[in-house]
């Protein structure tokens, strides 16, 4: 592969696959909000 093609492959990999990894880590670290709005006690988790 040429240098420019490799560069754009790396850019794609970092931005797209990196975006996927970052979004998975973000979700894993913050799976749900800490405080729900009013009325949350009336809504069950599996509702």
């Amino acid at each position: 592969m040429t240098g420019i093609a490799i560069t754009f492959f790396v850019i794609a990999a970092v931005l797209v696959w990196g975006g996927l990894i970052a979004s998975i880590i973000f979700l894993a670290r913050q799976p749900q909000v800490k405080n729900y709005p009013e009325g949350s006690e009336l809504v069950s988790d599996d509702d």
Partner: protein
Amino acid sequence: MSVQQKSGEHGSVASRPREQWTGQLGFILSAIGSAVGLGNIWRFPGVAYENGGGAFLIPYLIALVTAGIPILLLDYAIGHRFRGSSPTAFRRLGGKAGKWLESLGWFQVWICIIIAVYYAAVVAWAASYFTFSFDLRWGDDPGGFFITEFLQTSEPGFSSQFVPAVLIPLVLVWVAVLAVLGSGIAKGVQRANIIFLPLLVVAFLILVVRALFLDGAMTGLNAFFTPDFAALGDPNVWIAAYSQIFFSLSIAFGIMITYSSYRSRKANVTAPALVVAFANSSFEIIAGIGVFATLGYFAFQQGVAIDELEGLTGVGLSFITFPAIVSQMPGGPIFGALFFGSLVMAGFTSLLSVLQVVSSAFQDKFGITARQASIRVGSALAIVSILLFSTTTGLITLDTVDQWANNVGIVGAAIAATILVIWVFRRGPELAAHLSAVSTFKVGRIWQLLVGVLAPVVLLYMLIQRIIVLVTEGYEGYPLWYLAVAGWGTIAVIVIGAISMTALRWKHDPDDFTPWPSAAALKELKK
């Protein structure tokens, strides 16, 4: 006691609790399974190559962030807040003065009905080609085999001459998809995605790794990734990027509204959306690498440059170019089986999601179960699908209906949804607050601007441009009468279907519903 029980509403318009995904993972895999479809494999690589190669990534990623993810979040917000199929959710969003908004939901459902009947046929072709791979049934002339021998394609029209080689796998595809659909969300749709999506990824990764070690593979990757920066000055390249993102993410025709309506009320909505969107694009990049490494090998074998090859996208790429490559390749039958097996799995999970939109809408409106919807509605669709697409005119009908359903139907539905929700009913702030209240990734005014301004402007440009081309130039040289019936007729069916279904009586009152968090609670949060 839940809010729904207090208000006499059970999360559904039916008198039973609304079905749910078993958890975050099940939902995410199913949403990715829906987004990753045939277009990821056969459309993205060619579109990227023809629109600037590596430079296409720039408008592609901008389109992902400014339109793809925002509209995906809009769908999720509508489905999650109003907890229903597309017609139910839009009717509830419209409120007392906007019950007619249900018709937009039915417009989306009818788009899904149209897409399902022909998409099943493509999955059936792929399933046939999966078996053909083992003995390279297409011989030395894959193009002639596909058009003449396999599909027995005749002139444009509506034939009653069935093609058994298409009919039998098509019936099997419908039996399989309706069996899954009838099993419900958790035991059917989710379970199928949990099995097929990992299998698809593994199968396709094996294919990609094999392709990378073929002679000429690096030449193919050079063609795919080398940027043509001049292309960035062409508005059509930007439109191609927005189109690719738009059609690839399964947005604006009810799927993501339906899927998010099966999430629990406290579910995190936005963060999983980011995972789904980036996973979809990640698969597209992998598909680009696999397809162009393979095309590089083909060009090497033919002694030509990549830009001299024909059939780099769509049906031509999959059913003509790839079989030709498989025939020349050492270990070709295994490579072919991996490729067509991947197409079947990607197509099957997407087909499931399209049909779930239809099933969910009929369940809500008529108070029937998933099993009843699968048997009654699904069987009717299967019959139409078989009558139209297992005959000698199936390919041309499919090509025409697909062109209008996507470029006019879905784009039109998206424009209507963004303008009506944001500008006419002014629900942008409420939906943004809802997303932020239950999710860890917050959205606000920028999201509303992207959904309310940028998205409809770009989509409107796409729609007008396409309609002008279809009206002035026609499509693929097909006769005008045929385009009027199969093309514009498709849009007429969608519109008439939407109006008719809206006029029918509901089995259970869909308006007996209390959204959570309440509007007052959301306002309190903003302070």
